[in-house]
C-alpha cells in the first residue's frame, strides 16, 4: 500500500508541477489578452472606432473566454483535489486570485463596451468622439499571438450586425458572471491567506524593481516578432537609454 501511495504521490508531484506550469502559462496569456482587450476597449466610441476594431474586440474577447474556460476547469479540478501538496496548493491559489482579478477586469471592460456602443453607435459615424487618436495598430495581433491579421476592409455595416453583437455580448457577459459565481461556490480560497511572491514584487517603490522591469520589457520588445511597421526605430533607442 505505501508503495502504491508513494507512486501515486510521485506522479502527483510531477504532474502537479506540470499542471502548475500549465496553469501559469494559461494565466499569463490571459493577463496579456485582458490587457490588450482593455487597450482596444478604450478606443470604442472614439474616432478610431471601426468595424475592424469591433472585429478585433470580438476576437480578443473570444480568445479571452476560451482561455478563461480552460483555466477555470484546470484550477477548479486541481484545487478541489484534496491530495494536492501544500506548496503547490499555495501556488494554485495565487493563480486563482490572479485569474479572478482578470475576470473582474474583463467583465467590467465588456460591460463598458456594451454600454458605450449603446450611446455612440458605429452606424452613425458622425457621433464618434474626436479623441485625438489616429489609427489603431496590431494590438489585437499581439493579443491573439498572430503575426498578422488579415482583415477585409468592409466599408458598410452589415444589417443587423450591431444588434447581433449586443445580444452576443450580453450572453457572454452573463457567461462570465456565471463562471465567477461557480468559482466562488466550488472552491474556497481564503484571499487573506494568499501571499504574493517574494521581494521582487513586494516593494512598490524600490528603484531596482522598476529598472529591472523596464529592462525586461525592452528584452521582450527585441525578441517579439517585428510585426510593428508603425513603430519607429527611434523608440527602441529611447527605451534602451532608460
Amino acid at each position, binding site marked *: 500500500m505505501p508503495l502504491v501511495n508513494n507512486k501515486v504521490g510521485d506522479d502527483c508531484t510531477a504532474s502537479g508541477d506540470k499542471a502548475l506550469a500549465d496553469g501559469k502559462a494559461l494565466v499569463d496569456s490571459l493577463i496579456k489578452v485582458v490587457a490588450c482587450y482593455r*487597450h482596444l476597449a*478604450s*478606443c470604442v466610441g472614439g474616432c478610431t472606432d471601426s468595424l475592424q476594431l469591433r472585429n478585433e474586440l470580438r476576437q480578443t474577447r473570444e480568445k479571452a473566454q476560451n482561455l478563461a474556460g480552460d483555466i477555470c476547469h484546470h484550477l477548479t479540478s486541481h484545487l478541489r483535489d484534496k491530495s494536492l501538496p501544500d506548496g503547490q496548493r499555495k501556488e494554485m491559489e495565487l493563480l486563482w486570485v490572479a485569474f479572478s482579478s482578470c475576470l473582474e477586469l474583463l467583465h467590467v471592460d465588456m460591460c463598458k463596451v456594451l454600454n*458605450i456602443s449603446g450611446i455612440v453607435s458605429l452606424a452613425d459615424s458622425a457621433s*464618434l468622439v474626436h479623441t485625438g487618436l489616429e489609427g489603431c495598430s496590431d494590438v489585437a495581433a499581439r493579443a491573439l499571438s498572430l503575426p498578422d491579421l488579415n482583415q477585409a476592409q468592409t466599408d458598410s455595416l452589415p444589417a443587423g450586425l450591431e444588434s447581433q453583437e449586443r445580444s452576443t455580448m450580453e450572453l457572454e457577459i452573463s457567461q462570465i458572471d456565471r463562471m465567477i459565481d461557480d468559482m466562488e461556490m466550488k472552491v474556497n480560497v481564503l484571499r487573506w491567506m494568499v501571499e504574493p511572491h517574494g521581494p521582487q514584487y513586494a516593494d512598490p517603490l524600490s528603484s531596482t524593481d522598476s529598472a529591472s522591469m523596464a529592462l525586461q520589457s525592452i528584452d521582450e520588445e527585441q525578441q517579439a516578432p517585428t510585426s510593428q511597421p508603425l513603430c519607429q526605430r527611434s523608440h527602441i533607442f529611447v527605451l534602451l537609454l532608460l
Partner: protein
Amino acid sequence: MTINTLAKGGLQPEQMSCFRKMEKVLVAMQDPDMGMKMRNQRLLITVIPHAMTGHDIITWLIQKYHICEEEALHLGEMLVKYGYIYPLKEPRCLVLRPDESPYRFQTPYFWTSTRWPASELDYAIYLAKKNIRKQGELMEYEKERYSLLHKRINHTWDFVVMQAREQLRASKQRRKADRIVLECQEQAYWLINRPPPGVQNMLDWGLERPNNFSTRVPLNSDYYKSEIETSRRALGRNRVKSSVCLEGFVKYSEQYQNHDPIMQGCLPSNPWISDDIAYWMMNSEIVPVPTRLRVERWSFSFMELLSDAMGRREFMTYLEKEFSAENLHFWQACEEIRHGESSKIIEKVEDVYKNFLAPGAARWVNIDSKTMDKTLEGIKRPHRFVMDDAQMHIYFLMKKDSYPRYLKSDLYKNMLAKAVVPQETKKSVFPFMRRQRHSSPSPAQAGAQAAEEDGRAGTNSAAGSHF
C-alpha cells in the same frame, strides 16, 4: 471583491441623470457640420489633432442652446469637472478658461460612470504603470496611496504588476502621438476618480448619497398596490393652476395697496418716525369714529368685517333690525368654543345647544337637517371642533345673504360717510431741526389707553390733527 452584473441589475446605483445629459452634449459636439471646431495641437515634433480652445467651447454652447455666456461658462465647467473634456496645458487644474487654452474630448471608455466606478484594482494598476514607466513620476499622495493599496490588495499584487507591464507593452504598439494621448486620457480619468488631497471629489453625492437599505424593496404585488393607491390619491387632490393663483394674488395686492402703511404711507403720520401715536389711537379696537380706510376694508370680504370688533358691532346692529341676529350670536359662541379654554368647552357646548340648537330654543338657528344630526351626535362627546360644521353653515348663510345686503344698506353707507380721513401732520418748517428724542410709547399701551378713555381724544404731542 464584488462583481456587479447586468443581469442582477439595480445593485449598482443608476447612472446619474446629469451624466446621461452630459454624454448627449458630448455626442452633439461631434457633429461634422454643427459640431465643435477642431484644431491641431503642436508639441515640439508631434502634431496631435482634435484639440479645441476654451473660447470655442463656450461659443458653441451659446449657439447651440441659446444661452447666455455666464450659463455657457458654467455648463462648460461642469463638462470639465466631470471629466468629459480635459485640459491639455495644465492637466491638474480642472477649470474651463474662456480663452485660447486647449482642451480635448475624453474617450467614452473613460467617461464618468456610477455603474462601473473605478476600482481599487484599476487604480493600483495605473499607479504601477506610472511607477514602471518613469521612476519618480509618482507624486507624494500617489506614493502613499500606492503603499496603502499594496497592503490592502496584497494578495493580488503579482497580478497588478504583471497586468501593468502587459498594458504598457500593449500601448507600445502605437505611435508616439497616440501614446501621449492615451496617457493624457488616463491621467485625466484618475484625476477625477481619485482626486488629489484637497480637491473636491466630484463623485461624492454628499447628503444625497443613496441609502442602500431603502432601495432593496421587494417588488411584489403589495408594493405595487400601495404605489397605485398613492397615485390614485394624488390624482384626486384639488389642484389650482398657478396662473389662477397668481391672478388671485395680484388682485389681492391691488385691492390692499392703498391700505398698506408701508406702500401708501399712513395718516396722520408714521409713529415710528414722528413719535406721534395718533395713528394707533385712531385705529384702536373701539373708537367713536373709525377711519375711512377701515370701513372700506369691511367691504373687501366677510372675514374682514367679522374680525374687526367695530365691524362686528355694526353688523350685529344691522342684523337685529333684520331679526336674524341669532346667526351672528351663534357664530361668536362657536368661535369662543374653538379658541377658548379647554376646561370650559363642555360647559360652553351645553350652553350653545340650549340657546341655539335645541328645538324650541330662544335663538334657534336654521341649520339643514344633515348638519344638525351630525352636530347633535357630536355633542354627546363634545370637543373643541364639534361645532365646526354648523358654524360653517351659518357663516356661509350670513355671507351669501345678510352681508351683501348690509353693504348696500343705509347703516353702512352712513358709517362710511361719517368715517374720518385724518390729515397729514404738517412737517416741520425748519427741515433739519432736531427732534427731541424720547422713548416712544408702546402701541400696546396706546390701545389700552384708548379703551379706558372711551370717547376722549387721545393725547398727542404734535399739532394739527383734526377730529
